[in-house]
């Protein structure tokens, strides 16, 4: 039974991690594409149109990967988490079905039109299809976040005698206090990833002295969008989320901030340190006094319950992983703001394109927003453990009762092998597309 739960969780964690590499780019990138396409409509400068179409090619590769790795996510609710599906399907089935029906349909129908239909439709309709792709991908995020918000903070339900969760207020699913902050935070983080990718491609072109005109456009767009979104990720959306966790999941909050002991007069904020689960303390800690209390409650001396205030079973099941995920996300987010602010400073002074160390930094920074996005999701999900539905349904009670651990290990190995191949193909294709560049080829 222990094995079973472990393999089920590992398979879900692996497949969702791999899947979320792609949507986090496409959601943000669609915004940048709509921006560039719109700029072309207003200015009629061909450069913007080519840039938008080039980014749409990158979008399309990511979208395909997102679709083929996304279908297994929907299936796995039934295959590996059958008991969870049975018990909660009448609630979260609503939001998941809406995701398929409204957003996924919108996105994939109009993506093909955007890519193939420019000559058929004319520029204004072409812009509109791009906008609908953007709308579809953000709506998709909205419905998935609504599903997750319900698991984090269940609302609008009642529990029947047989343990089934039954929806009794549809509207509550979308007015869930967890939903809007999480959605905005997630979408801004997605814009961070795509801005960094675009800026990185720009830096690559400028450094290589090839496609320089587009390189400068991508750098400028990426840096401006990157700085704005990095700031918005931290404040107000990140702040808003942290306050939500402190309010609705105080045990998870204590664990992710690394507060082992409750401090009478205001909690310190931990910058660095390793959780020591034997002695219940942080090793090699660097912390600043009272800041956490101020950030969370705008009161320097407000008491924040530490992990010592909770019973063992109320605490998240993997405290170090939760703590690290959260601190990696916050640490990277802070670095992003710094780098992008510096880049904007030089952009305004009109010498960004000549400062090579900064361009190299921007180019090589590209994996880190992905890491920050993923660790952000790990923070949310590890904070919820050991529950599937926070406080109500244990993860161990949600797995499929008839699927043996041997079968799950078999499919897990299969997914690992297949996704390694997919990842390799993905890199080759994206590399090829970037190498070709946005300049239209003459046949």
């Amino acid at each position, binding site marked *: 039974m222990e094995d079973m739960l472990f393999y089920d969780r590992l398979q879900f964690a692996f497949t969702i991690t791999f899947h979320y590499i792609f949507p986090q780019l496409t959601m943000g990138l669609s915004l940048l594409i709509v921006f560039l396409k719109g700029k072309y409509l207003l200015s009629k400068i061909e450069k913007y149109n080519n840039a938008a179409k080039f980014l749409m090619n990158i979008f399309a*590769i990511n*979208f*395909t990967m997102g*679709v*083929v*790795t*996304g*279908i*297994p996510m*929907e*299936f796995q*609710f*039934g*295959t*590996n988490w*059958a008991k969870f*599906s*049975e*018990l*909660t*399907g*009448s*609630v*979260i*089935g*609503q939001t*998941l*079905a*809406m*995701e*398929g*029906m*409204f957003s*996924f*349909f*919108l996105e*994939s*129908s109009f*993506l*093909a*039109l955007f*890519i*193939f*239909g*420019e*000559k*058929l439709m004319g520029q204004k309709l072409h812009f509109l299809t791009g906008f609908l792709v953007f709308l579809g991908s953000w709506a998709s995020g909205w419905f998935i976040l609504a599903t997750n918000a319900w698991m984090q903070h269940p609302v609008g339900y009642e529990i029947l005698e047989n343990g089934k969760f*039954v*929806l009794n207020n549809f509207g509550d699913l979308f007015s869930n206090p967890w939903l809007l902050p999480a959605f905005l935070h997630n979408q801004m983080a997605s814009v961070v990833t795509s801005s960094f990718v675009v800026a990185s491609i720009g830096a690559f072109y400028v450094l290589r002295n090839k496609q320089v005109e587009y390189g400068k456009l991508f750098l400028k767009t990426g840096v401006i969008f990157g700085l704005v979104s990095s700031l918005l990720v931290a404040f107000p959306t990140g702040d808003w989320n942290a306050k939500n966790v402190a309010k609705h999941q105080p045990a998870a909050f204590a664990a992710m901030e690394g507060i082992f002991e409750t401090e009478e007069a205001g909690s310190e904020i931990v910058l660095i340190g390793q959780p020591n689960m034997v002695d219940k303390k942080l090793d090699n800690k660097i912390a600043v006094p009272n800041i956490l209390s101020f950030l969370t409650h705008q009161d320097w001396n407000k008491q924040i319950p530490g992990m010592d205030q909770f019973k063992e079973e109320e605490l998240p099941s993997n405290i170090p992983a939760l703590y690290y995920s959260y601190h990696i996300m916050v640490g990277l987010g802070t670095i992003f703001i710094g780098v992008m602010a510096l880049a904007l400073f030089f952009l305004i002074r009109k010498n960004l394109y000549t400062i090579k160390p900064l361009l190299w930094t921007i180019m090589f920074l590209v994996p880190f927003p992905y890491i920050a996005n993923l660790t952000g999701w790990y923070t949310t999900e590890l904070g919820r453990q050991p529950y599937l539905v926070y406080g109500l349904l244990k993860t161990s009670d949600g797995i*499929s*009762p*008839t*699927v043996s651990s041997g*079968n799950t290990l078999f*499919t897990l190995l299969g997914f690992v092998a*297949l996704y390694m191949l*997919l990842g390799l*193909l993905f890199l080759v*294709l994206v590399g*090829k597309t970037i190498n070709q560049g946005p300049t239209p080829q003459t046949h």
Partner: protein
Amino acid sequence: MEVFWYIAIAIVLAVFFILDGYDFGAGIIHLFFAKKEKDKAVITKSAGLFWDSNEVWLVAAGGMLFMAFPTFYASVFSGFYLPLIIVLWLIIFRAIGLEFRSQFKYQMWKDIWDKSFGVSSLLLALFFGIALGNIVRGVNLGDVHHGVSAHEGHYFFLPLWNTSFSPLTDHPGVIDWFTIVIGIISVVTLAIHGANWVILKTNSSINNKLKGIIFKLNIVLTVLTLFSLYLWQIVNPNSLNNFVDKPFLLVFPIIYFIGLIGLFYRKKIKKDEYAFLYSTLLILGGITSSLASLFPVILPSVNPVNESLTIYNTAAPEYGLSVALNWGIIGFILLIVYFIVQKRLLSGKIDNMDYGH
């Protein structure tokens, strides 16, 4: 309300099999009959342009099933664990074959992804037929052994096969001689459907040859259909009761046979759209007849201990089903609008299209 969602999901599933069916079929035709590079390229394109917007119907069906019949969703998806995951892998292989084939001009690269597209299309068609065979045959609900359930009565786990490959044992596997026949019927049907699609959407050089192939495949299909009806009587002697009790349900098998008979005249049919319509009727009739023969059961139990799964004992409560109706109707209208917009803009022969791409 259960009946409404049952019909809605059946429609979405049937649309999925009709739409994705033609690109599976195109894959099968591509695997066996396309020899020249030009034909291979255009057939791949005739599937590649549409597969992802066709597969959203599968995602929609999955989501609706999850919402409306969560118990069924949980039971079937975990019970058919291995075949479902294998189907997922095949879907991935097919998609990367379609998307990545034209990215490099090397012949070897194209050959690899052609085979990946063709073989996975063939296996998927086979698996979907086998899945339908499993649903009409039924499973050992509760994994009953010597009259005792090993699990709650609506859960089960099916091995890929058992040693006898027989549907008549107490513990049938996914693949047995009955389901394999249904699987082959599915392959032949989708090959016909795919051939019609290729003729309709392309100017490939094998179009004329394909008309003859459809005729031959149709003979095979007729024989297999009659044979499967005989086998079905052995596997489930009550399979025709619904049609006797409610004769109006006979409209579904009639749809199937109209399609079957119509396709014998493939060479005489001037408009390729009509031929495509006949193979559409074939798929529609096949799926709806199978579902109608079971209704209101959606997964029969082969043991006397646990009752079959029906739309009533697996449905979500009334409130959820009726509130979903509000957004479901809007959703349906949107689906139809997207569908029409997309098909109109990408109408005509693939070869003649200019994408500006």
